């Protein structure tokens, strides 16, 4: 299991056919930012070649499931299951574009206003009609101070959600160019059902009610969700009769794949890849994840407020060795987000140039330089510190152990301590109570290219107003750059430049030592083909991307 999400602390990720497109088609889709697209067709998910014949049942393994079958508890890969039952207004496509779904069209008349036109004639599984009030209720659960939604941080800019005829109007308190992605990750549930079930909504005996292509039929918290085809679905007929999604530990997953009981596995554990590649009936594919393994240094208190100490440590981390050896061929990272994030937003050559410059800013692996930096710091004799890791992501420990060897050579002694997830999240994210040095796998919660920079570098994300700025990094210049970017439309090319500026600042000030960009692996039985696998597979309607081979 893995914690995931917004700050996804985990090992997963991905890309897609050929490379990066996380973002690519996005711009096309929202073309003009204020794009209103009308479409009578249902979601037009690309389907791979193949017979397109129906699949009776599919047993899959997923990295994570919620403790409640509800949209308030669905983040990261959990959405890959919940969005099949409780579908969103707009659908994120494998090519990065957004397609109309429960909203047959939408427009953005101003930077702070979105209007969605609700599709008519859609019904929940129980036959009751979908109304604008359901959408308002489904949005409102994430808004406000008393919300219990794990997605609340995406909704802080929302001031008001209201219905106007068959339209839903969302007013923002401040511009949020990535808001449309928030809509794409937000499932719609029945408000009436929710009211009737009260606080038992989403529990195993109650489940939840949506309009999606699959309806929930069983749920074991954190372990298993069973879905069955919704025969009355308004859109394209769902291609799979039954989906069994389960969270399996590594050994069980391997056995399940070997015995043929698992048809597809999302986010395979990197540490076990060799076992999976040796199976003849199981095909693996991988894409770069929209995530980064990074060391975090709390810069507003000793000892890591000393930039020379930070630089010394950065020089002591052998990224190449870690990316190659520990992470099985991941790419070494010299900044906080992978270059693929910029695909579609900037020409490849420009991105490469900018990343070459970012690489120059990041202290390279060089123990002599590390010693020199340490000598200039307030701690010429080195320091001793502890780094917390958790078992659910074995890479955290492996990376830290490798880095600790280099650090020990210059006098920075690192003890690695394994703790449970709760303890880790508390210390690293929520309370920022580590010794000052920590490691995490931080994943983008959405495809926007400012998602990771904003979460990790904006001073607003330091407690008490946020927590993902784990380094407590505060820079007026960075805040200003991020504010400027938020006043631009999501497809404005200047946002990419601003994102690069922010990353440059982070490279100079060094609150983080990025280590590697992991890949995300998908394994599928050879009797099936999966097209368009990407880092945000959990936002896609992925069953439409699977076809049975002849």
């Amino acid at each position, binding site marked *: 299991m893995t*914690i*995931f*999400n*917004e*700050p996804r602390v985990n090992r997963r990720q991905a890309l897609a056919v050929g490379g990066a497109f996380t973002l690519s088609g996005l711009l096309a889709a929202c073309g003009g930012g204020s794009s209103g697209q009308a479409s009578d067709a249902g979601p037009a998910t690309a389907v791979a070649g193949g017979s397109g014949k129906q699949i009776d049942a599919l047993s899959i393994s997923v990295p994570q499931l919620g*403790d*409640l079958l509800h949209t*308030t*508890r669905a*983040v990261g890969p959990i959405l890959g299951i919940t969005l099949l039952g409780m579908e969103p207004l707009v659908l994120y496509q494998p090519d990065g574009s957004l397609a109309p779904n429960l909203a047959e069209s939408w427009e953005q008349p101003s930077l702070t206003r979105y209007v969605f036109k609700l599709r008519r004639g859609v019904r929940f599984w129980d036959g009751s009609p979908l109304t604008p009030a359901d959408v308002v209720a489904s949005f409102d659960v994430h808004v406000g*101070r*008393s*919300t*219990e*939604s*794990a997605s*609340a*941080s995406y909704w802080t800019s929302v001031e008001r959600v209201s219905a106007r005829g068959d339209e839903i109007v969302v007013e923002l308190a401040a511009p949020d160019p990535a808001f449309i992605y928030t809509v794409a990750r937000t499932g719609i549930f029945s408000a009436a059902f929710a009211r009737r079930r009260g*606080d*038992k*909504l*989403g*529990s*195993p*005996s109650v489940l939840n009610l949506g309009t999606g292509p699959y309806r929930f039929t*069983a749920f*074991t*918290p*954190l*372990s*298993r969700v069973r879905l069955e085809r919704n025969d009355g679905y308004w859109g394209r007929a769902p291609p799979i009769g039954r989906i069994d999604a*389960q969270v*399996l*530990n590594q*050994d*069980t997953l391997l*056995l*399940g794949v*070997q*015995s*043929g*009981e698992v048809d597809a596995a999302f986010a395979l554990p990197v540490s076990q890849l060799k076992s999976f590649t040796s199976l003849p009936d199981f095909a693996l594919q991988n894409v770069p994840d929209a995530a980064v393994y990074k060391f975090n240094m709390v810069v507003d208190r000793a000892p890591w407020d000393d930039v020379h100490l930070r630089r010394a440590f950065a020089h002591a981390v052998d990224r190449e060795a870690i990316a190659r050896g520990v992470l099985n061929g991941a790419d070494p990272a010299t900044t906080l987000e992978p270059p693929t994030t910029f695909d579609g937003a900037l020409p490849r050559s420009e991105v490469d140039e900018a990343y070459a410059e970012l690489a120059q800013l990041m202290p390279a692996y060089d123990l002599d330089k590390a010693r020199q930096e340490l000598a200039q710091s307030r701690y010429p004799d080195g320091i001793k510190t502890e780094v917390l890791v958790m078992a659910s992501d074995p890479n955290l420990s492996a990376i830290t152990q490798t880095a600790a060897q280099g650090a020990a050579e210059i006098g920075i002694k690192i003890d690695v301590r394994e703790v*449970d*997830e*709760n*303890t880790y*999240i*508390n*210390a690293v*994210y*929520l309370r920022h109570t580590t010794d000052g040095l920590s490691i995490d796998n931080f994943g983008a919660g959405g495809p926007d290219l400012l998602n990771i920079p904003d979460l990790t570098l904006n001073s607003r994300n330091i*407690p*008490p*107003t*946020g*927590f*993902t700025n784990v380094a407590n990094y505060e820079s007026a210049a960075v805040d200003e750059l991020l504010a400027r970017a938020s006043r631009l439309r999501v497809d404005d090319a200047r946002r990419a430049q601003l994102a690069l500026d922010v990353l440059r600042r982070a490279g100079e000030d060094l609150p983080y030592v990025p280590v590697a960009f992991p890949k995300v692996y998908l394994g599928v039985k050879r009797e099936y083909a999966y097209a368009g696998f990407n880092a945000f597979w959990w936002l896609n309607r992925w069953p439409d991307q699977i076809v049975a081979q002849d």
Partner: protein
Amino acid sequence: MSGNVIARFLARRLAAAVLVLLVVSVVVFLLIHLAPGGPEQAAGGEFATPQQLANIRASLGLDDPLAEQYWRFLSNAVGLDFGSSIATREPVLDAIGRGLQVTAPLVLVSFLLICTIGTALGTLTAHRAGGSLDRATVGLALVGASAPAFVTALILLTVFGVQLHWLPVFGTGEGFAERARHLVLPIATLTIAGTAAMLQITRTRVKEVLGEDHVTFARARGLSSRYIVGRSVLRNAGIQIVTRSGTIVVGLVSWGLLVETTFGLDGVGQLLVKAINARDIPVIQGVTLVIAAFIVTVNLVVDLLYFALDPRVRVHAEARA
């Protein structure tokens, strides 16, 4: 009169049992509150905002004095109301009930198999002590007992699940037949792990008893072997066998937890592990109390069986009364 003695004995033991459960509940309660991280995260999700967490703490009464929180828990628990899970909103008893549908057959069937196979083989090998059958049986049982349960599980899974495709390798299954199919390998794992202990105590005791004078006399009187073993030998060996049964059944509960993990079974053990990770206080308290109550009950039953098996215990108790 002896009924009276047993009643008094029972009353004493029940009082002790209640005391044990109280102590367990206090210790568990304190341990949960000492651990870093609070249940508000279970309710708010991993990445709830600080404001949300504060709201949730307040709404769950987690900022109240510990004594007050404990008293609230205890007064509800007396009425068998453990509240609802903070994370899943499910009533704790419902969650335990669901877990027991997996764990109860797992532990009980394994226990019955261990008792049957263990005593049968123990008696048989005691009669053939030193022979090749004895050595082979005891050796095999020891191998089973010394292999860690998860290794046994992996071997069984590889052979019967992956190679032969006879049985499923994970999951709980729905309906009686599917559930039974899913439980075959977990039960086999526990049985293999536990049988040696039963075999060994039975073999040792039966062998001892076989050498005692009363058995020799019984033989001399021409009583049948079956009669001697049934009425004389096993009854005399019974106290030790029953005692060992108690420890085995308690052991099965903790081995079961491991086995549930290996086989991906959603039993009580898994429920507890997840609850501990989420600091889901009501579930942790509910499950630990149920497990503690089970263990206390097992001990009580073992004590009562002494009365039934050994007249000396009854006489001794009466003399003291």
